[in-house]
């Protein structure tokens, strides 16, 4: 490594005065090539899986029945050739994910604010560490935990909202972590400028700090949403699948796209209709997340303009 590379962050001018040596230029070009290559290589599986899902899933989604019918009255896979739709699962996924976000996002952002803006010393370290730990909780353990609390301890009947509770545990660390990173990257000068003007700390955070990193926080929230919308394992334990549309988070069973997939997956190798449902549901999830992603970006953009 040349001395220059060691001398962060203000490079010594003397080393650079004579202009770029060939070796350095070459190294830089090599790095550029490598980075393009990394992107190109990574693109292969990403495009492959995207293609697999889209090419097999889009046709199902193009039928109106996919969006406005549930699976009621459909007989066993491979023997009954009714198709019908995924409305029950789409509605279920949206409701569950919405409730999850409603609970998890405020907690996560507040936690991140605590860590960055208030937390000092040991307690902050513990909180920060716990967020890391939470990010390592396997989804199935989160579900076991909710099941144990809800059913074993309180003897309650599982309702669709329980799935949201399990998903909250998975969403909090993702959103907290990324919100924390974003908050840390807000230059301190901004805060100091606000304080100097006599703005109270909480207002500084709400009006200055948060808006300046809103796009990052929104990205984090979307990642969290994407993470929980496609989560299968916890739903298997706490959210039983049903063929029927249910819009009540607090009673009965509620279908979701991952559980629709899971129910049909076992038949897909032999029953083309089940296979269509599997890929259609996967594709729908992606489209839903895309739509919400775009909406989120728009929101992030608007808030940025305001600030």
């Amino acid at each position, binding site marked *: 490594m040349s001395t220059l590379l060691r001398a962060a962050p203000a490079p010594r001018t003397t080393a650079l005065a004579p202009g770029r040596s060939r070796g350095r230029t070459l190294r830089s070009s090599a790095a550029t090539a490598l980075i393009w290559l990394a992107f190109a290589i990574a693109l292969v599986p990403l495009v492959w899986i995207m293609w697999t899902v889209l090419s097999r899933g889009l046709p199902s989604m193009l039928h109106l029945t996919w969006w406005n019918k549930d699976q009621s009255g459909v007989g066993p896979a491979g023997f009954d050739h009714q198709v019908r739709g995924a409305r029950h699962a789409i509605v279920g996924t949206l409701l569950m994910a919405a409730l999850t976000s409603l609970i998890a996002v405020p907690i996560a952002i507040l*936690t991140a604010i605590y860590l960055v803006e208030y937390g000092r010393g040991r307690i902050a370290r513990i909180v920060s560490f716990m967020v890391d730990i939470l990010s390592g909780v396997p989804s*199935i353990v989160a579900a076991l935990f909710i099941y144990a609390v809800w059913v074993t301890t309180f003897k309650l009947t599982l309702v669709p909202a329980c799935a949201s509770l399990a998903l909250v545990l998975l969403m909090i660390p993702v959103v907290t972590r990324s919100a924390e990173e974003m908050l840390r990257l807000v230059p301190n000068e901004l805060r100091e400028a606000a304080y100097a003007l006599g703005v109270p700390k909480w207002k500084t955070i709400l009006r200055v700090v948060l808006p300046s990193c809103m796009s990052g926080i929104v990205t984090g929230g979307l990642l969290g949403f994407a993470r929980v919308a496609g989560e*299968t394992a916890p739903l298997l334990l706490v959210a039983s699948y049903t063929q029927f549309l249910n819009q009540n988070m607090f009673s009965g069973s509620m279908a979701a796209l991952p559980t629709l997939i899971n129910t049909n997956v076992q038949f897909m190798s032999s029953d083309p209709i089940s296979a269509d449902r599997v890929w259609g549901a996967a594709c729908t999830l992606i489209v839903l997340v895309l739509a919400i992603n775009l909406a989120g970006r728009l929101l992030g953009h608007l808030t940025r303009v305001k600030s």
Partner: protein
Amino acid sequence: MVGRAGEPVGLGPDRRAAARGRRGDRLFHGAAATAGVLVVLIVVLITVFLVVHAVPALLHDQANFLTSRSWDVSVPMSFGILQLLWTTVATSVLALAIALPFSVGIALFLTHYAPPWLSRPAAVLIDLLAAVPSIVYGLWGAYIVAPKFAPIQDGIQHLLGWIPLFGGVSAISGGTTMLLVGIVLAIMVLPIMTAINREVLAKAPAAQQEAALAIGATKWEMVRTAVLPYGRAGIISGAMLGLGRALGETIAVMFILSALPQGSAWTWSLFNGGETFASKIASDAAELTPGLGTGAYIAAGLVLFLLTFVVNAVARLIIDGKKDFSE
């Protein structure tokens, strides 16, 4: 933005405003701290739950929990985690080893190298992949990739068989090995790691980058000196998030990886099958009934939990150490 500056300056309102500010601060501080404490509480509760259920099973375990490879939870129980631990750690570390350089590379590409017309859509594409449900990665890996990957794996075994990690294993057919799981896991964690790295690297201060370029640094030198150091903590943090997800991935592993029968021969080879903690729990989740047997699975879950704990502690030490150094 800071509207307060325009307010009439007077002792009265100013003091009131200050009082309001203090109250607001207290409330806001309180809310933030409550959220933080809530997270701690959740983790403590989960730990307590795991320990309470795991201990009775561990007390009845006839085998050594840490070194046994058998898994028999019918009374008398004899179960151990060695095989699960190895499979979990090997696949996750492999996934991280593949995903980390790629995620940094892609994040750099998106933030500093790609032309604008490409970086936006590419970023959206990668974000979308975070939304592909893991069961789909599982299907894709098991039914589409595995058959195509099998001959490649045979080739690697043939060439590198003398390295224990790549030793030949004849018992697993069709490419459904730990190596494939590691690669698929890498693809699965790539979006989330890339997204975080991208945000972090994009936030590197432009002034220093421009300064570096202005004094004649090449692009790569600029990146090394003014971008990467800035993102180190975030990159490690993202990597831990990715590793956590890889360690806990359930459905995809369950679909792809061939399970081993009881008492199969031990091998270090990545071409072996096996089960991870999470896939083992999920495989048998259907029959988890209250009682000792379930405790064994929860004990496995506890180990996974502790594993993440250790990994994160180490990561934290690294981050903190780096911070001290750079400050």
